[in-house]
């Protein structure tokens, strides 16, 4: 039944319903606006859970594809006359597989929690929630788009709502942070666009028949051509002698691979492209940071995997050490800097850098264990950082500060929230039984196969993570409490619900990692086959 529905489009565009209702509601009725937004955010979560329940990893997402031709422009070739027409094809092509599904679920979960956490928003609710839901559409689209240009469109669709959400509803330095966010992500997008255009004009070339040839943005076409270049070259050469050289050129592969690495590296972020996200972490409203740290950063890793690694396994293999070194730098650099920060949000920002380093390690392993580890780490970190910023939001509302030096002993007045914070911290430092451990352990285990020393160095990060997590979390919850905090109230129901839900997911993955590994089981099959075929053989 589910496969008869355009389920992917339904999921992606379901927030539109909420946007329309929100548009009709009066701007002052904060309660109804809030209820509508939260109710709307439930919709994609339910639909994606349904999809998850129906998903069969053995088919690797085959049945779940939706495809409509979007743009099809013919243009006559200058040289060969009108009989031989060439077209440029873009498709609205959505698909889901082992890579997309976990991240789609993460998106719908975190988005709902962030919608709940937005109770702290104090002004202009109507436009806030409209931007918020638009952002959700963009994020879900990114994880399902199977056409590079469609991917790009969804990717950009996340930038604009984010710009306004940071710039209007953030803290003191919000406008500067929003500008920075837009500039750096804009640069990243520009580089990504160049890479995509190069991809379309080389590997996107496809010959249907003697008279129908086209350039396509289709991920499948590009992937098929890159996987079996000889067939593509033969066909292309038969049609036009010169073309093959370009298509096969090694340097073109490298160019595209490196462009993609930079484009997604800014988003991930990879050191030294990380400074923009520090400001977002400190200046954006906490519920938006939940989205930003929880999902948007994952788009970088997802893009790197989907386009960088899977399309260019040979380049990835050759640069595996580079990726691993970048990962280790991220881990250690982030951890050491998180250790000296005086502001809790900055601790968490650097902690994100450190944890994204683990993702890089998993990717660099280029084996099943590590790649699965990287994926789990993405989901896990998404949940954990969403939880942490959920707490930050509630904390700030009560104390008016997130400076570590001004807090302390809050476990006395707020035992529940402190307990959740400690749990989140433990998850973050990779305590077994919680999700962080699985991602971290599998990434390290995978990388250890090929890079022993680097892995051992990365394990140092495990110690440093404990140091900075405990330092900051205990500074807030343990120790003597200041008089002014005695009367603080513990979490309200609307705050407690998302906290408990996120903790539940973190524990669930920690104890039954199969909930994630099962759907991902065959997600990397083609990549691994290619690697063993091309590189190993």
């Amino acid at each position: 039944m589910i496969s008869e529905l355009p389920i992917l489009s339904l999921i992606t565009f379901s927030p539109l319903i909420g946007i329309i209702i929100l548009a009709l509601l009066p701007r002052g009725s904060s309660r109804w606006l809030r209820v509508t937004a939260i109710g709307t955010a439930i919709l994609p979560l339910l639909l994606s859970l349904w999809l998850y329940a129906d998903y069969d990893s053995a088919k690797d997402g085959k049945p779940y594809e939706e495809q409509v031709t979007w743009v099809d422009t013919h243009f006559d070739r200058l040289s060969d006359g009108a009989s031989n027409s060439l077209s440029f094809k873009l498709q609205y092509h959505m698909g889901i597989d082992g890579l997309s599904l976990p991240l789609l679920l993460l998106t719908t979960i975190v988005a709902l929690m962030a919608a709940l956490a937005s109770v702290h928003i104090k002004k202009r609710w109507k436009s806030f929630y409209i931007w918020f839901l638009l952002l959700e559409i963009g994020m879900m689209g990114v994880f399902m788009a199977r056409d590079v240009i469609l991917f790009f469109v969804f990717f950009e669709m996340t930038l604009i709502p984010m710009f306004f959400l940071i710039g209007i509803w953030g803290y003191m330095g919000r406008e500067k942070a929003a500008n920075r966010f837009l500039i750096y992500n804009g640069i990243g997008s520009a580089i990504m666009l160049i890479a995509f255009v190069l991809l379309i004009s080389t590997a996107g070339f496809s010959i249907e028949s003697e008279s129908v040839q086209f350039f396509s943005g289709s991920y499948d076409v590009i992937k098929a051509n890159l996987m079996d270049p000889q067939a593509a070259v033969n066909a292309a050469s038969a049609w036009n002698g010169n073309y093959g050289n370009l298509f096969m050129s090694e340097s073109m592969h490298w160019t595209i691979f490196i462009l993609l690495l930079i484009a997604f590296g800014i988003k991930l972020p990879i050191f030294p492209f990380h400074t923009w996200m520090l400001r977002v972490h400190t200046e954006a409203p906490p519920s938006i940071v939940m989205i930003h740290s929880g999902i948007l950063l994952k788009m970088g890793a997802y893009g790197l995997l989907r386009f960088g690694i899977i399309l260019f396994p040979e380049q990835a293999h050759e640069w595996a050490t580079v990726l691993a070194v970048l990962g280790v730098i991220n881990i250690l650099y982030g951890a050491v800097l998180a250790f000296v920060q005086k502001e809790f949000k900055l601790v968490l920002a650097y902690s994100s850098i450190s944890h994204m380093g683990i993702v890089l390690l998993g990717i660099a392993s280029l084996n099943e264990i590590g790649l699965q580890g990287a994926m789990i780490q993405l989901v896990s970190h998404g949940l954990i950082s969403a939880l942490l910023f959920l707490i930050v939001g509630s904390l700030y509302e009560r104390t008016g500060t997130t400076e570590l030096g001004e807090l302390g002993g809050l476990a006395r007045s707020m035992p529940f929230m402190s307990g959740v914070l400690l749990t989140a911290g433990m998850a973050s430092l990779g305590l077994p039984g919680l999700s962080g451990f699985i991602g971290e352990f599998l990434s390290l285990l995978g990388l250890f196969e090929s890079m022993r020393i680097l892995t051992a160095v990365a394990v140092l990060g495990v110690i440093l993570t404990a140091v900075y997590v405990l330092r900051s979390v205990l500074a807030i919850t343990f120790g003597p409490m200041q008089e002014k905090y005695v009367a603080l109230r513990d979490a309200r129901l609307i705050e407690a619900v998302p906290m408990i839900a996120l903790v539940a997911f973190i524990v669930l993955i920690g104890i039954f990692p199969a909930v994630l590994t099962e759907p991902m089981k065959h997600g990397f099959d083609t990549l691994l086959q290619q690697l063993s075929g091309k590189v190993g053989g």
Partner: protein
Amino acid sequence: MNTMFSEIAWLIPLFPFVAFLLLLASGRSGQGLGVTIGTVGSLASLVLSILVLMEHMSDGSKYYQDGFKWIDLGSFQLNIGYEVTNLSALMLVVVTAVSFLVNVYSAGYMKGDERISTFYSYIALFTFSMLGLVLADNMLTLYIFWELVGVCSFLLVGFWFTKPAARAAAKKAFIVTRIGDAGLLIAILLLFWYMPDHALDFVRIENVFEGQSGTVAAGVTTLIAILIFVGAVGKSGQFPLHVWLPDAMEGPTPISALIHAATMVAAGVYLVARTFDIFQASPAAMETVAYVGGFTALFAATIGIAQNDIKRILAYSTVSQLGYMMMALGLGSLTGGIFHLFTHAFFKALLFLGAGSIIHAVHTQNINEMGGLGSKMRITAWTFGIGALALSGIPPFSGFWSKDAILTTALHENPVLFVVGIIAAFFTSFYMARLFFLVFTGRPKGEGRIHESSLTMTIPLIILAVFAIGAGFVETPWNNTLGEWLTGAAGADHSGSGLVMVVSTAVGALGIYLGWLVFVKGTIARDAVSSRAPWLVGLLERKYYIDEIYAAVIVKPLRGLGSLLNAIDQYIIDGIIAIIGGTAVLLGRGGIRLQNGQVQTYGLITVLGLVILIIAVVGRRFWS
């Protein structure tokens, strides 16, 4: 074959886990309920553990294993499982017995604490994790529970979280043990990639490493063994990672008895015993274990002499005794190590609970502020005395037999370590004599009336005292029940044990006599040493300045590096990126200026763009 109880051994950790969940759900509301739920949970575990142990002591039944696939990665899989061996059956009883007694004791000790329910939930979680660790059938499962006991220890050390000292101690306990854990983690990674079929279970580890079969190269074997030992060093407070254990005494005293004396800190010894075949395949690793253990035994005993906090003295004593166990393992005596673990669990738990009883009565931990408690707290004094004699290795108390087993092995294997062990034994009996005489004899120093503790506290003391007396008889030079049962081999060489007995008893008695002379009789002045060599006393009081060295060598440089990188991050990296971003903005501004509404400008741009496009299209053909 009868494995009826072993088959349901997975229930043993489950009881306290259910208790934990119930307590978690009830929150702070269930005040009195906490005690009941926690105690009942641990009692159920204790009963089942005893049944499992009895099953294992009967003939015929030896081994039971079960588990499930945890993470399935196509060609690889990771399992969670449990197994019941003789060793784990013994440990089950030790853990559940001490845990149950501590549960009972805490009902009195923690009475009136508003967070008593939380306290019981932590104990339940700890008991669950510790039992999981004991039952684990593979390295990964063990590691998972290994970390969980660590976090429980952390929570309980920091139980009185408003005290800055408790916060610091909890943090230190977690981080220092994590250094060891990192080593263990790397050892697991190595095992996974070097073992045939990526197996991590103990049975196959045993098969592969038994008798140095050479399946795994010698260098790698040594590396794995040393890294496992690094994990054990962290957990069992061996030098140089011992620094967290004395500070961990900030936790409630029943916890010090359960976690930081009897069970969790012994997990390092247990780990080495579990993976003993890897160690035996590497002589270098065995030597490392033996020397680190021996050194720690002596090193910590000397510090014990100069401490004034009753719990800290006992903590250093724990470090020292764990050193003995490690030394035994390093010298190849699995039986000796486990035997001492077994007896130590009872007499050290007894000493800590006794100390708790004292602290409960006098509200201080400084032994110089105590005195004359013997007449007022008779049960505590008697039981504490039994524990002290057992620790000092005086016959016929249990510690005598187990220490004797270790020293006999040392005499055969390594005379240097034998001497070290004897000297450490002397210091041990001396610091215990000092502690005992200062606390229980002489004139009372504190104000106010002092009572013996309530029955919930004294009954566990009495039970533990019985074990402290009797537990040693399972293995004596004339009766190798424990050794044969544990290792399946005939008893170790006992020649020379007569000599060892005489020497160790003499040394123990000498320590006590010296203590009596100094602290009761006053024949030797108390400041006899401190007046002549104040530097020596200072050195011992400051614990050889190890904490200060770590602060100067690791913590401060790390903080400095962090601050330096922070400055670089803020000014240089952000600056460079800002310049790149700024260029983009400038280009954009230039673009805006061009849009001035003049058709000629647009035309010019169009032409320029066309030229660039043509160049690009043509140029692309030459790109190779």
